[in-house]
């Protein structure tokens, strides 16, 4: 079977893409109701962190199988 780290990579990649895309959208079209510290655009940089972590896990384990 595929190692658990492969699935971690898949999950983080999918989640990171959505959070990053949502953050970029808010950057150009700000929401009407702003959260505290909305100007930091956390969705952009935190989404990028999740996405790159996911890609790293995925690439490192995509060819591996475990018993």
């Amino acid at each position, binding site marked *: 079977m595929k190692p658990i780290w492969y*699935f971690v990579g898949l*999950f983080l990649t999918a*989640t990171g893409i959505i*959070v990053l895309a949502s953050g970029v959208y808010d950057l150009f079209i700000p929401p009407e109701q702003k959260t*505290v510290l909305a100007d930091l655009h956390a969705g952009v940089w935190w989404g990028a962190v999740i996405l790159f972590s996911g890609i790293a896990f995925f690439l490192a384990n995509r060819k591996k199988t475990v018993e």
Partner: protein
Amino acid sequence: MATFNLSIVDWLILAIYFGFILGLGYYLKRFTKSQEDYFLAGRKNSAWVAGIAFLSANLGALELLGMTGNTYKYGMYVAHFYWIGAIPAMLFLGLYMMPFYYSSKIHSVPGYLKLRFDERTRVLNGIAFGVMTLLVSGINLYAMALVLRTFLGWDWNVSMWVSAATVAFYVTLSGLMSAIFTEIIQFFLIWFGLFLVTILGLVEIGGVSQVLTNIPASFGTLWSTSADASQNGMAITWAGIVLGLGFVLSFGYWTTDFLVVQRAFSAKNLRAARLTPIIASFPKMAVPVIVVLTGLIALILAKTPGSGFALLQDGGHVNYDSTLPLLIMRYYPHGLVGLGVSALLAGFMAGQAGNISAFNTVWTYDVYRAIINKNASDANLMWVGRISTVIGVVLSVVTAYWAKGFPSIMDYMQAIFSWVNAPLFATMLLGMFVVWITPAGAFWGLLAGMGTSIAMFLGVKFQWIDPARITLSNTASDMAVNFWRAWWAWLVCFLVTILISLFTEKKPKEELVGLVKGLTPETARDGIPFIKRPEFYAILSVVVLVVLNIYFW
């Protein structure tokens, strides 16, 4: 109380999370072919997989909502739960107890009691553990329902049943294997989903130094105010912390609670099993970065005029468990809200799935096979495991309604642990390290310890006993009573076990080989360099623990 309007991206993240864990359960079913696969994940896991699952099984509602709320209530003393109240016990399990557990090839902790003592001690502990597990599982469900109501405005009943059904689906299909896989997904989700709350909170307050200067002095230390119970937020002395939490409750939970120990049993060899809790000790020490810091940040915000932050009120009481969800609402924009909610749900799912997978194993091996069907086949045991998973989930929903009546989740959890785990730790300690402890001594000692804890709990609850008599101090919080009750339960079990063992029949030594120190060959270390041994990582862990305690003294 306004609820969150989730956007389409938030729903999408929630849908991905649920789809992923359900899909994993379905995917892993094809690899679940035997009882060993179903109940012990095939005993094939690396130390890292088992270690993260070991921690994640514990990283449920207790850790997230309960501990953040308790930090708001008690201050930094809550960090004791993660440091002195966890690390020494985890290291002790890995270094000294795991060889007895793992080498005897048992399926559960009560299984060890059968080998070391007798069937009645095993069944007593198996039933007690089953009841405790379902109660704790109910807490997880209650916490999940709280989050869903807070953020989504969902009905309590619908929330509990939907989340319970999700856990039931994947645990029923592939047992411990799916529980471990989803626990690891949940571990990453919790860190990526909740650590950002800490970061944004620190940005708003102005950094860690500002947090420490803006909280009451009694809320910002670990030990320097512990000589006098009236001088610290938790109203407890250092003796209560060390004896009750650091020794009895911590060792009782981390070394004997099958919920966490089961993850180490799934390791591929003894070295990996010993490394499991030791590896887990490092991220365990980091969890206060999320729960303690956010609790303190919430405390400061609540006391800052114009911050717009206040905890929920629930029936006239402050709902401390709303601390973390409210901070997520404060900081997270759309997209991140879905991540934060998924992270909270993940924490609850991990705890609940862990409890249910432990429950189905103990029920199947230590009650069903021990009492009902001694000659059950492999297929029959797997079938019973699946049925007991469903029944366990249903019973935990019922107990969730009871948990709802308590103002703080953590106080309730500690009460349960001191009924079962505290005396069991005395039994295990004596059983593993003292050859002449007898089956009769273990059984009656365990019964006496459990009885003591329950009697004290009822005595305080119905005001038959002054709490000060239990805590040996005039100032006593609920938490302090829990710590001290655990200590007395342990002590009674310890003494009664020794006393009765002096006058009752001992087991032949040849039946105790591999189960007791002195009758067990030392762990083979040939060819393994020191930096790859469990002892090396345990030393590193101790160094980090000491530094943290000195820094926040």
